[in-house]
């Protein structure tokens, strides 16, 4: 246990040093979501009506969740980088606990996720987004988002280890993130959809997290009839933890495989 802690800390520090030495990477993950907030907020905001509040208030939880999911691509690219330049082989040939290497990466990647959240929250605030249910509730919302970001990072480790090259990682990340966000309530209210499509969207885990965040932030958003939409917070926590557990087990197994 001590070995795992010492080694994970050392490896996490390595990633954090990378972050401070390549600030452009941080710029990438903060500018993108800000652009989304501004573009979607003004573009969709002028055509989409949301019951009980403005579209920008509605939008923020969706953008937050989308960015957490996008984290998987950045993590996977980092994994591929280490595989390519041989540093991964070095770590594997050392007496390092097998779990420490992917754990350090996913923990360090939380820093990036936090930076993205802060940047989006500031811009969102400037555009009129507010939380209405108090600080504790808002922090719980961000906690849930970070949990999703952490789970996505583990999915990213798995994707990186399995695909082993940057082009495939980008393609697969796109194929995961795009349908997951557009077949969800992240950008549009689901009320106008045909019943079958609405069911698909309401059971999409990302929709559940978004609905939970809207509830915790006190932002507008129509609740559906399905069970996860009726109980978004417990459903979101359960689904995200399940995703995390599955991804962590598979990623650790993939890391140990030779």
């Amino acid at each position, binding site marked *: 246990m001590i070995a795992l802690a*010492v080694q994970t800390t050392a*490896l996490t*520090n390595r990633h954090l*040093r*990378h972050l401070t030495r390549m600030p452009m990477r941080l710029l990438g993950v903060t500018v993108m979501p800000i652009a989304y907030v501004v573009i979607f907020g003004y573009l969709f905001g002028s055509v989409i009506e949301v019951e009980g509040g403005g579209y920008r208030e509605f939008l923020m939880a969706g953008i937050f969740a989308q960015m957490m999911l996008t984290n998987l691509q950045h993590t996977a690219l980092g994994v591929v980088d280490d595989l390519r*330049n*041989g540093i991964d082989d070095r770590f594997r040939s*050392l*007496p390092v606990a097998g779990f420490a290497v992917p754990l350090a990466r996913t923990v360090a990647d939380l820093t990036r996720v936090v930076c993205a959240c802060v940047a989006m929250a500031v811009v969102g605030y400037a555009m009129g987004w507010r939380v209405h249910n108090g600080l504790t509730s808002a922090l719980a919302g961000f906690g849930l988002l970070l949990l999703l970001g952490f789970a996505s990072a583990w999915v990213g480790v798995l994707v990186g280890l399995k695909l082993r090259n940057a082009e495939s990682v980008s393609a697969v990340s796109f194929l995961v993130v795009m349908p997951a966000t557009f077949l969800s309530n992240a950008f549009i209210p689901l009320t106008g959809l045909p019943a079958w499509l609405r069911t698909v969207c309401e059971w999409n885990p990302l929709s559940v997290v978004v609905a939970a965040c809207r509830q915790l932030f006190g932002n507008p958003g129509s609740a559906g009839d399905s069970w996860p939409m009726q109980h978004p917070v417990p459903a979101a926590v359960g689904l995200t933890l399940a995703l995390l557990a599955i991804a962590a087990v598979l990623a650790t197994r993939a890391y140990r495989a*030779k």
Partner: protein
Amino acid sequence: MTLAIEITGLRKTYGSQVALDGVDLSVPAGTVLGLLGPNGAGKTTVVRILSTLLAADGGTARVCGHDVAADPGEVRRRIGLTGQYAAVDEMLTGRENLVLIGTLYRLGRRATRRRADELLERFGLTEAGGRLAKTYSGGMRRRLDLAASLVADPPVLFLDEPTTGLDITNRRTLWATVREQVGLGTTVLLTTQYLEEADQLADRVAVLDDGRVLADGTAEELKRKVGGEQLHLRVRSATQAVTAVQVLARSSTGAEPMLDADGVSIRLAVAGGVTGIAAAATALRDAGIEIDVFTSSAPTLDDVFLSLVGRTPGPIPEEVPA
């Protein structure tokens, strides 16, 4: 005599491609084995299995008495690995690279720092220790890579083509460092494409081709197999070439002369150094052979192959990294 590395009947296939086809090797503690072979011979596969990066399909491999498959943790505690591609973190300084490795070994904060300083000093990197590794030259990077594999002072060191791509000065520096390390009692398994490198560093040399060990002995024994100087000559015509082969077969004490596919080039190994070369030249002159080209060189890997398998190492696909 304790064996630091014991390999028996090691097999590995990648899909339909056989990388290792029953390899047996043993390296006594404190000695250097040079694993010589062309690209795709299986050298890297041997190193990857020994360093627990890859699982074998058959056979056993033991390092310091510990089975690599059953006891990878114990093996990792005893090995250092320096690969073909210098595996250092470019975005860390030289010093930070070494400190990271020391921390992963859990040497303790103070011991880790002392060790990092020691190694930077020894590898002539003290000045550069505070700079990011991405600013290093190829030679410096390779030295840092070797230093990183020595942080925990492992009893067994794997060097996978440690000087490929380095210029001669850097190659010499690295050789000197490896020799120094061997002087401290480290067992080394070195893979290389260069006979000279094996000659410089190894106590014993094993020649690997197509996943099989073709020959195993001291560098001297191996060279004796090939013969001494390699003589390459080209005569005026094909008829003269046939005569020349007969003349050389009679006069020289080395191996049979071999006629190349072009019909006018001949190569043979000559024993006895300059005297042998002179004898061959005299015999050809006396027979009235007209010679266009007459060169001699020390045996190369090609010559070793030629004598061991009767062919040069052909274009074999790149070794598949796992």
